[in-house]
């Protein structure tokens, strides 16, 4: 029985694509999780978003060779997923953020009271972030990731680098006003 050449090529190509996707999972799953968590602020939702992102990659694995920057491409995919999920989900109460932050924040050298106070402070900051306009909020959230440069943030959001910088400037000013208003 002779095996056709096309079948061999197809099988080899499929194995190569599987190996490439596995490498992407090992390399970028953590970064994608952090991006998803910064928006959703729920571990299980963030993990679901990461899995959905890689399932989309699996569906479009034929275009893997055409992608130049896999990291930016993957972050853009998971960013669209989490924005879509956040749009559909109802507004989370602030108490959820406080309890979740108290659970995930590093507690080394902090007493229980200090940890609770820090969690409340971070929850207030996140509440202020939620009050920002969408464009400024997106830039501010993405700029917190050390892996992403301004050019890469611009590529993820589909805007220019100068727009990223101007939006970040406005976001910081608005955040300062909101936090000061919260204190007084």
């Amino acid at each position, binding site marked *: 029985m002779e095996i056709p050449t096309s079948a061999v090529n197809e099988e080899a190509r499929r194995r190569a694509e599987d190996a490439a*996707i*596995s490498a992407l*999972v090992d390399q970028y799953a953590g970064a994608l999780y952090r991006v998803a968590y910064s928006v959703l602020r729920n571990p299980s939702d963030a993990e679901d978003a990461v*899995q959905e992102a890689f*399932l989309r990659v699996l569906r479009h694995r034929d275009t893997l060779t055409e992608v130049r920057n896999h990291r930016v491409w993957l972050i853009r995919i998971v960013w669209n997923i989490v924005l879509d999920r956040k749009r559909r989900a109802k507004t989370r109460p602030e108490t959820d953020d406080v309890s979740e932050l108290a659970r995930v924040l590093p507690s080394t050298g902090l007493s229980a009271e200090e940890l609770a106070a820090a969690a409340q402070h*971070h929850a207030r900051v996140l509440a202020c972030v939620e009050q920002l306009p969408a464009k400024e909020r997106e830039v501010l959230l993405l700029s*917190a990731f*050390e892996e992403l*440069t301004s050019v890469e943030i611009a590529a993820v959001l589909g805007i220019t680098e100068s727009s990223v910088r101007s939006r970040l400037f406005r976001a910081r000013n608005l*955040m300062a006003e909101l936090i000061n208003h919260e204190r007084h």
Partner: protein
Amino acid sequence: MNSNPHNAMNSGSGPNSGPNSGDDTLRLIAGLPAPAGLEERVHKALRAAPRSGRILAWPAGFRAKTALESNWMRAAAAAAIVFVVVGGGWGVYSRVQPGPAGKVIVMPQRMPSSGGFSGAGAIRTPATIPGPKVTDQGTKGAREQGTQTAKKPAAPKKAATGQHPASAPTPQPAVSQQSATRPSSRP
């Protein structure tokens, strides 16, 4: 923590970059470690996902049998599809009955004209057909004579006696005297 020099958060471009702008909170959240075993769970989800995106697929038992004959099967399926389409088209075409002939209205034949007007059958005759008339010298002299004889004679003087003009003697024309004294030009 944030060590990327190209990151806008690190550039310090904003006047409020610091604790008041909430950067530390966002960096803290952005730096949270991923849960353990995340990659394994993603691998498992990918393995459980359907491999092919095809909507129609062969049954599992039939797929293994026809894997090596897929080219032949594809060609046969394509031929069958072409046969069905062409046969259906021919069936429709052969059943079409020619309809009754419609009324034909004969329109008057239009005159081929470029500008919209016709010449009404007129034939243009050039003015050069009769040809030029050439006059000789003899006829010219005679014509001059004719003009001189045709001169109006001088008006007769009224008689001072008061005679009726009808009873007065008829004056001789001066032209006749001149023609009598002038030699004739004709031989």
